[in-house]
């Protein structure tokens, strides 16, 4: 983070995000919070599927472990631990759940792992429905708000007004989400650009090359799965805080597929791409629900007419987005942005003197189909 801030590229964005609660209402802050939570989960899945080349359809399961883990650990019935501690433990719990799966995650490759993880979602959903005492069964359970040193991320306790803006749960959770997302961004970048990231790319691109360079392939595969599960756990806990009540039906296969959609739309293997995809996939149905009245062919929520409901319409839209992305920009929004940036003349001129020899061979590639 610090080196990025020094270069100053992210600073305006960070300031903008930090200032938003003073200008926009709770609806937008909620969208932002869910997008940030989804981005954390998507970054984790991107690390597994994009970087390590391991498909997982079980992401919803680990989101559920994080969400229910937090709710149970911090709540009643449950041990009632301090919520901050419960949050940390929920993340570790999700990591441990991923670790339990590691005998499989370390040995099974690519799409086969996808099929194996599919079982987790159904298993998880079943457990959530039946283990009433922990999960509250079909009706779910409420999520205790997070407290940190006497400060509660809820509407009251303490009442808070900053610069004339009353700080309710949405405003407070926005900053919590921002902080956790920043943590995710920094840690995921560190992993991807460091030794583990290079090893994972090698495992994806050539198992044999990775092995003869000293990479323990099975260990790195399971480690990627564990780390991905931990990000999912964090995302799940943050989602739970945003929802304030969690129900089993949310953590179904469709959620896993949503996360896959996020990383495909955003572009595999990049933190920024996963974030962009997460914002797109999360915000779209919420926005369509809100503006259903103004959209053609989309019914208002709750109406029983023949038209398509906003949530389904959003699914169609991002389904179409996936098809378009796969056809015209297989490297996702991230790749699209990179190519657009390369076409802006100012940037290229700036970059050219520093990397003159590399700019030349890189150019022709843009024009090859």
């Amino acid at each position, binding site marked *: 983070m610090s080196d990025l801030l020094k270069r100053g590229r992210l600073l305006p964005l960070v300031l903008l995000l930090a200032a938003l609660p003073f200008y926009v209402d709770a609806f937008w802050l909620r969208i932002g919070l869910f997008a940030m939570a989804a981005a954390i989960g998507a970054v984790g899945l991107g690390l597994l599927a994009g970087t390590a080349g391991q498909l997982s359809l079980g992401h919803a399961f680990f989101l559920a472990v994080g969400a229910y883990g937090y709710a149970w650990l911090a709540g009643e019935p449950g041990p009632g631990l301090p919520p901050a501690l419960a949050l940390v433990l929920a993340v570790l719990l999700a990591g441990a759940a991923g670790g339990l799966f590691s005998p499989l995650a370390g040995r099974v490759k690519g799409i086969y792992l996808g099929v194996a993880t599919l079982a987790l979602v159904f298993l998880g959903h079943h457990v959530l429905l039946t283990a009433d005492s922990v999960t509250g069964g079909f009706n779910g359970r409420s999520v205790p708000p997070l407290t940190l040193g006497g400060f509660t991320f809820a509407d009251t306790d303490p009442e808070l007004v900053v610069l004339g803006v009353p700080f309710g749960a949405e405003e407070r959770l926005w900053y919590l989400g921002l902080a956790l997302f920043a943590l995710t961004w920094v840690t995921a970048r*560190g992993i991807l650009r460091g030794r*583990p990231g290079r090893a994972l790319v090698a495992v994806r691109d050539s198992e044999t090359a990775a092995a003869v*360079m000293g*990479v323990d392939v099975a260990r790195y595969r399971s480690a990627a799965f564990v780390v991905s599960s931990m990000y999912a756990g964090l995302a799940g806990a943050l989602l739970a805080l945003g929802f304030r009540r969690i129900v089993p039906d949310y953590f179904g296969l469709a959620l896993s597929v949503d996360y896959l959609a996020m990383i495909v739309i955003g572009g595999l293997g990049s933190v920024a791409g996963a974030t962009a995809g997460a914002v797109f996939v999360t915000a779209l149905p919420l926005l369509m629900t809100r503006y259903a009245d103004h959209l053609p062919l989309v019914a208002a929520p709750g109406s029983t007419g023949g038209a398509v409901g906003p949530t389904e319409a959003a699914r169609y839209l991002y389904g179409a987005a996936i098809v378009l992305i796969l056809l015209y920009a297989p490297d996702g929004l991230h790749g699209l942005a990179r190519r657009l940036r390369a076409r802006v003349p100012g940037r290229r001129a700036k970059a050219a003197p520093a990397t003159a020899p590399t700019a030349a061979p890189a150019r022709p590639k843009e024009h090859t189909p």
Partner: protein
Amino acid sequence: MTDRTTPPPELAVQDVTVRFAGLTALDDVSFTVAPGSVHAVIGPNGAGKSTCFNVLSGLCRPASGTVRLDGTDLTRLAPHRIARLGVARTFQNIVTTEGTVADNLMLGRHALTRAGFAASALHLPSAVREQRAHRDRAREIAELTGLGDLFDTPVAVLSYGDRKRVEFARALCLEPRVLLLDEPVAGMNGAERVRTAEVIRDVRQQLGLSVVLVEHDMGLVMRLADEVTVLDFGRAIAHGTPEEVRRDPEVLRAYLGTDDTGEDAA
């Protein structure tokens, strides 16, 4: 990192046999790579040279026989453990990974570095320092192999010869004590071949390592090798200096061909 003060180890291949579903790819092959020497393994196509390399690097487990690196039996070890003992290899068909030349060379430093998920994620000073130090060394090796100008270039845009060099440099980044080169000059033009041969000779002198070389280019073998093992249909039919091997009647038969296909004749 580079303080391999001990002399390179002896690599002894003894009675190695590999069978693939009825085909005997290697049949009781034995040879010893003297410490610090260049040992060439030659033979016609399908003679078992690449299988031999796969056994040495642990990718293929022999049905019988041992490969000893200063007493350690490599045939029981997984490939990544063999790499950690200082055995590096290149592939006949280039195998690079996505990213820049630097990324590929840093992969070669994997076995020599420690930073794990937690240290990298938290940007711990130790991880940052380690990455910087090893990147410097990777750059040195890039300079040594003529990749200095291409250090930050994506591998995907490089020419065939340059990618071949990336693989070679990546293997060197392991600071190997034994370097296995599978056809290092295949597909290169004359000038590139001469240059690669020079680099191989240089690194062997500078870094003091043993080199095992599989190569079809006889000129290169004759110039570089101290000793040659000739394989034919999975059997070692001759050993010796390049001069001796060149005059060996068995070898001539294997290469030029007679109606006797290398059975225990004469």
